[in-house]
């Protein structure tokens, strides 16, 4: 076998061992779980006192209540992030 071919075969073997590695899936899962837990905690802070109170004013911003804008945009952002994390390969 030539050098290139050998290199290719080696890379393939490495990839295969990666794919069939039973622990890799678990590691990935754990990584995702950690990320999601952190995300939940971070947004829990964003959506609670004291940060919440910053937006909690009876004022309009561009015709919409400030708190309404704040809560719903953080909410949308949160859903987007969760979507990205769970769908990451």
């Amino acid at each position, binding site marked *: 076998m*030539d*050098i290139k071919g050998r290199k290719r075969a080696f890379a393939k073997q490495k990839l295969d061992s990666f794919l069939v590695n039973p622990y890799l899936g678990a590691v990935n*899962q754990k990584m995702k779980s950690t990320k999601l837990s952190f995300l939940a905690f971070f947004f829990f802070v964003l959506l609670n006192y004291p940060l919440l109170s910053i937006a909690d004013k009876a004022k309009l911003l561009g015709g919409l209540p400030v708190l309404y804008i704040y809560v719903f945009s953080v909410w949308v952002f949160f859903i987007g992030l969760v979507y990205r994390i769970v769908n990451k390969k």
Partner: protein
Amino acid sequence: MLSSWLIVLFSLIYLALLFFIAYRVEGSKQKKRSFFQGPVVYALSLAVFCTAWTFYGSVGKASKEGLGFLAVYIGPTLISPLWLFLLRKIIRICKTQRITTIADFISSRYGKNLSLASIITVLCFLGVIPYISLQLKAISDSFDLIISPDFKMKSGSYGLIGDTGLIVALCMALFSIVFSTRKVESNEQHTGMVVAVAFESIIKLFAFLAVGVYVTWILFDGFGDVFSRAFVFPELRNLFVVQQQFGYSDWLWIALLSGIAATLLPRQFQLAVVENTDESHLKHATWLFPLYLLLINIFVLPIALSGGMMFPGNGVNGDYFILDIPMQMNQKALALLVFIGGFAAATSMIIVDTIALSTMFSNHIAMPVLLGSDYRIKNPLFDLSRFLLNSRRLGILVILGVAYAYYHYISKYYSLVSVGLISFVSIAQLAPAIIGGLYWKKGNKKGALSGLIAGFAIWFYTLVLPSLVGSGIIQSDFVQYGPWGIELLKPNQLFGFTGFSPITHAFFFSMLFNLGLYVLVSLNTKADDKEQNQAEIFVNIFKYEKIMDAAPVWKGQASIPDMESLLANFFGEQRSRNAIRNFSIRNQISSEQEKADPKLVAYVERVLSGIIGSASARIMVASVVKEEEVKLAELMDILRESQQLMLLNRELKRAKSQLELANHRLKEMDELKDDFLATVTHELRTPITSIRAFSEILFDNPELELDDRQHYLQIINKETERLSRLLSQVLDLEKYDSGKQKLLLEEVYVKELIQESINSIKSLADEKKLNLLVDVDPEQLNLILDKDKMMQVLINLLSNAVKFTETGGLIQVSALRRDDQVVLSVKDTGRGIEPEYQELIFDKFFQARNQTIRKPKGSGLGLAICRKIVELHGGTIEVLSEPGKGATFVITLFITD
């Protein structure tokens, strides 16, 4: 005002549609079912969380307290990503242990304890039935409202059909009985019911969005318009914020509370865990469910504000703004849609909760009572499976009956929201026992039991008792001054604490005592063996699930006929015998002998668990076997052994497959060798035959002419040469094949290489008057290679080209550099090579084996050797050709530094 007949008609049509959907799905083929059991249906079914309380009550709450109502949906939103691992673990446990209710989950974790399961069942009944009656109230209120001429509910004004709540309760009972009590296995999934619930989720969302769009863009001129007009009114401006008394603490605690509820409420548990068909659906639920919550909430504030502007002064109940607005504007179709939406929200909740609770009733109340009595012993022919189904049906009727009674006599005194949150707090009491049970091995039965009882007691004392004051059952002094005038025990201000609203207050103190006792008692008491075993399995489920079948956590003596008769209670004799035989075959245990294998006993217990719950299954199995306790250390040994066995098995399998592969390859090579030998001997025989023939002629005819003699000798000489060439080529090839051939690398100018190769065939080419063109670019191109070997290749290719090109043809030799490659090519204008042979010509003796195609002009080993040499240089050789238009042999070599 709409005619009551119309409403009744549409409600009946809607219910018929639900029946139809569930019925069609249940009867559909497996192929179609895979869609119904997909992730979208799963996520939509979880939206059963949004009941009539969400549908009507959110607007009501927003119209009184402003954006604070959102906490109930923020909590579940933030919790839902955690489902990916939390629910995954619970689902995995429930599938392997065949657990079908939340009560069974807790009881199973803490040693399959019967009293724990029964207590939790009673507590779930207390917590959830008022919630069901709340749905009945919502349906009946909205019905009264939509048929009334002045948007005001007249209590007790029953339409033509009598009591709406009762009718709805009966319809729901019918639906639940039809779609949930067809089979005894409670772990059997009810796909029809799930799809019907998902459908209801779509209807309620659609109805809500329709009103939202109508209010925002038709009544008003977009969001900005609604808000800026409401801004003028100070009392409406206050709804833009959460700054109420206890605003932020309520927000925090209620978010936490509803997050727990969205995970553990019996109906959520039923749909998320029991009805789950594929764990990967959780992945989609983590973002689809929050998205649903967001959509159903986005118009709540605009609707509440426009209701506030439309009905100023507190004449109209905010709970029903969503219905009042279309009626005020005389939008009858929209009002009808809203009514159906609210109806969907209520019925989906009623159906799922009723099914979940009825399973708990039959498995944790009715069955244990029967097993505890000696009724079965006196009546050996008693049909257990019919008893089970009937108790489930009875459970459904009892639940809906009690819910109706509660609605009729008590719930008229509440608004929609309070009952919902009271129910949440009761279910939250299960959280410490469940979460602790999943991750903390030391948590034990006594801890769980004391925590639960304390939590429920505080819940009852601080929320349920005060709520009964309005109905006159409890004296108002009790709330105002505390029992017997003891201020420190005032139900809404325990220990004199006044900083929380009643719900938060109850949630905080019940959880404090619940969690505290769970941890403290667990740390200070000892769990028995059964409990420790279950704790080990629950906490490490991902490690043990695969070996559950193989590792019996059971010691004792049992007989196969006894096992059969246990299953026969529910499946009939034939099916039970088959089940046991199949299991025996699968696990390679003998089913012939009288004594049952421990694996079989464990299997029977698991199957029974799926039908009657783990605690009852335990009792039934224990009644027919003689067993010994399994210590935790033994359990660990058993599990470890079977795990090692499994690993060993896997190892063996891998070794076996490798061996098979090697064997296969050897056989292949053997065949190749045989083939090669046959061809070589055949090739050798041809020249030898002619040598022998001519030498015989010479020997037999000494009087031959000199010319003839010369001619024959020349042939003999040529054939001998051919023979030795063939032999040296075979030897050559063998060297390459075995890898013994080494290259003598040196720096070579490509132009020189080509020129020298051409020189050695020049005379042949001149004979046929062929034109030879050489093109090397760049001129000074040099390569590191074995010059002799590469010349051998080129000469071979060139002489082939000369052989196959007709007189006067053209042969082009070129060498071009492309990036890090050098492409050498030899192009002729011969007859070309058919596409199907272009790869085969590089095989050994290909030409020889295909003598019908063309007359042989060589040994048939030349190209095979060429390929070997080129490959040894790390390059490739191939041929490009169109038949009739010549052939080009292309050698690609890589320049390596």
